[in-house]
């Protein structure tokens, strides 16, 4: 399983894309950070000049790297597009928070799918994002946009404490968007300014096929909330997901439609798996052929 050599078969789209490999806030000048991307060892260094270098010990060469949104990004190939554009990051009345990096022993694709899922809120995020008996997932719409992103709209769910500033429960509106195979975001109604949305981007670092690191990036309206609370809330939610995700079997995401049992509430996951199939993304997946 782990023996596949990355450059021989890794999908070009993934190879040439940018991936977060560290939260810059967690790095210190001059101290090497060792990590992995697609099973390849990397050593990242931040210099006093604030320059950066990301090196592959197996070849001794540097790979493409850059700093953006508070993260260190790297690419094993030749990037032909920039990192995802986040327009909210330019709005001055938002906290822009890196949510702390959380390693999870499961395929990053499973993590993305969990991010798209509302049905687990009452069971895993009990008393925060959901509570029994309010378990119903009302119908919502899913579509592939003209620029080939996956959008899930009209999602509604009853949440007792939808965000750190929410006072009491309310029906929360969600929009989900899969931007790239390992990049997903959500937009949800802000409890104070219900016409505006808080947004969360999730950059998943595929460490190998069965391990990933979740790097959340939060763009929350500053209205009534401080940065530390935003980070605390996100870490609480991710810590609740981690043990469940690590008990998923198999650890890679099966793309065979008959591997698992989808229900109507899983429309987003059905589309995501189909979308991955159409992009021929197999890294972190079990292909339909077996």
């Amino acid at each position, binding site marked *: 399983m782990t023996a596949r050599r990355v450059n021989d078969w890794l999908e070009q789209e993934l190879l040439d894309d940018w991936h977060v490999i560290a939260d810059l806030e967690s790095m210190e000048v001059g101290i090497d950070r060792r990590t992995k991307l697609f099973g390849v060892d990397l050593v990242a260094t931040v210099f006093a000049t604030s320059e950066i270098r990301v090196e592959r010990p197996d070849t001794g060469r540097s790979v493409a790297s850059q700093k953006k949104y508070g993260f260190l990004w790297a690419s094993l190939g030749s990037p032909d597009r920039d990192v995802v554009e986040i327009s909210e990051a330019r709005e001055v009345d938002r906290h822009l928070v890196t949510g702390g990096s959380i390693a999870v022993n499961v395929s990053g694709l499973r993590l993305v799918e969990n991010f798209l899922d509302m049905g687990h809120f009452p069971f895993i995020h009990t008393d925060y994002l959901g509570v*029994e008996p309010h378990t119903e997932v009302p119908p919502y719409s899913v579509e592939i946009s003209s620029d080939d992103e996956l959008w899930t709209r009209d999602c509604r769910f009853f949440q007792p404490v939808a965000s750190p500033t929410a006072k009491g429960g309310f029906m929360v509106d969600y929009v989900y968007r899969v931007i790239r195979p390992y990049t997903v975001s959500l937009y949800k109604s802000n409890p104070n300014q219900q016409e505006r949305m808080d947004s969360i981007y999730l950059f998943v670092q595929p460490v190998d096929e069965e391990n990933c690191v979740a790097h959340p990036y939060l763009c929350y309206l500053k209205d009534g909330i401080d940065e530390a609370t935003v980070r605390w809330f996100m870490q609480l939610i991710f810590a609740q997901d981690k043990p469940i995700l690590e008990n998923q079997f198999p650890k890679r995401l*099966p793309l065979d439609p008959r591997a698992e049992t989808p229900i109507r509430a899983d429309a987003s996951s059905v589309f995501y798996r189909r979308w991955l199939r159409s992009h021929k993304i197999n890294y972190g997946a079990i292909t339909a052929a077996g």
Partner: protein
Amino acid sequence: METQHRKWHPIAASSDLPLRHTFHGQLLGREFAVWRADDGYVNVWENRCLHRGVRLSIGINDGAELKCQYHGWRYANRTAGCTYIPAHPADAPARTICNRTYPAVERYGLVWSGETPDGELPEISELEAGSPCALRAIPVNAPADLVTKRLAEYRFQPNAKIDGQGAEITVETAQDGHLSLSSVDGEVSTKLLLFVQPVDSNRTVVRGVLSDRPKQEDELRVFLHHSRRLSSLRDLIEAEAAGLPVPEPMQPVIHRVSEELASMPEQTLSGRTAPLRVEVSRKWETAAGIAGLKLVPVGEQLPTFQPGAHIDVHMPNGLVRQYSLTNGPGETRHYTIGVKLEPDSRGGSQCMHREVREGDVLAISEPRNNFPLRRDAVKTLFVAGGIGITPLLSMARALHHSDLPHELHYFSQSEKHMAFPEVLERLGSGVVPHLGLDPAETGKQLKAILSRYQPAMHLYVCGPGPMLEATRKIAADHGWPDNSIHFEYFKNTNEVDDSSSFEIDLARSVMTLQVPAGKTILAVLRENGVDVPSSCEQGACGTCLTTLLEGEPDHQDVYLNESEKSSGNCIMTCVSRAKSGRLVLDI
């Protein structure tokens, strides 16, 4: 390796299954969720929820069902059939959502199972006579055949001379995965059976069973003796295994789910068939004029039911009648129904009362659920009139078991007319009897019960037609929206007008058929070889519900509520007809 798949292996000790625990077992690379229900039954299941593959060994054993942590799907004791999907509380899960089960036998203090074991679990003669006593399981990081080989060198003292030194050990039998050792020291001797459980290619569990339980005062010393000595032996075996090449882990086959589950499950099509055979194991008068019948399977396990489900009973006299199951959650060894003797019986209830006896075999359908119970209500009210108690009893038992707020209002002539009193008693203060009321008093009482509607409350009603109508009207008058009122009629007392004639188009089958006066849509479909499910065939049970794509329906059933009827997108094909010249059905 194949032979290992066809053998029985121990996978847990009985003591690994305390009340409402779920144990994580493994055999030949395959993980199991092992749990004991409150009725004592031991379930050995594939350790994966069918939905998203989360381990069921981290699920919640509520004594009757196992609930997955991730999305709260519930699976029934014994059958492993899914009974509830919280994301869609108004739907009854497809009967085919059923987890993979493995055989389970509890014997000699151990739980035995296997992939596909041949025959019955063999008797182990050494353990049949005495009082077997299982020792602590010892996991070893080594292949099973190496462990089996080295276990022949195990040295131990007999129970009665546990602190001695000079025991002679004889290996009486040594076969694949199973050794019988005898330790003799002077006058005393003890037999020890050692079973080797192949967990994976390089991991093994050693399960020792003493043929006789030590005396209570020696117990602790005997257990410590074996624990220490087996642990030392483990260290030696592991050291030896560390020098050998590491074998590839086993890859158990994960079976694919059935094709119809790969997309969103739809209702399966089946005619009015009775594939199950049950024996009437008990028949008793549960209340004045009401017979209780307990039906046990002849042969196979009964299929999973959900609260609110009914079965068709095909009677010896050729009639077919529907009866609701009264069973509580996880009660999967039998179906229990209640049958009221109708004074104007057309032969159905008379036959059940007078002709059917204990020991008789009846043909029944699989349970169908057209009266599904939501479990996402802030409070649920049940209103039962007379024999209408039966489906509501099953529902109330499910909510009671999960501590969900509910009240069961039972309108009955008198206390002696109340069915299944022993079950009602277990439901405790949730049951509110209303006895001997006339229609006016009943109406007054219903107004009091239904006067405090709040969002996310739900009402379930079952009883005689007039009472049902009254309850629905009172509820509507008190602000209960249509979709919060759920009802089930016993029968359709409306006069069915079948004088119209019209055309039906079957959109998916691409067929056009004529429905003449005097014949139902259902009958025309059947005549033309289109298999559609049905049950009561009088517009009461909901089984033949069909999506209507075009045309104006002439509803004559009592199953659909007013907003469903006016939506014009569904029809009961057993009684309803067309006002327009043509209907397009999604068949």
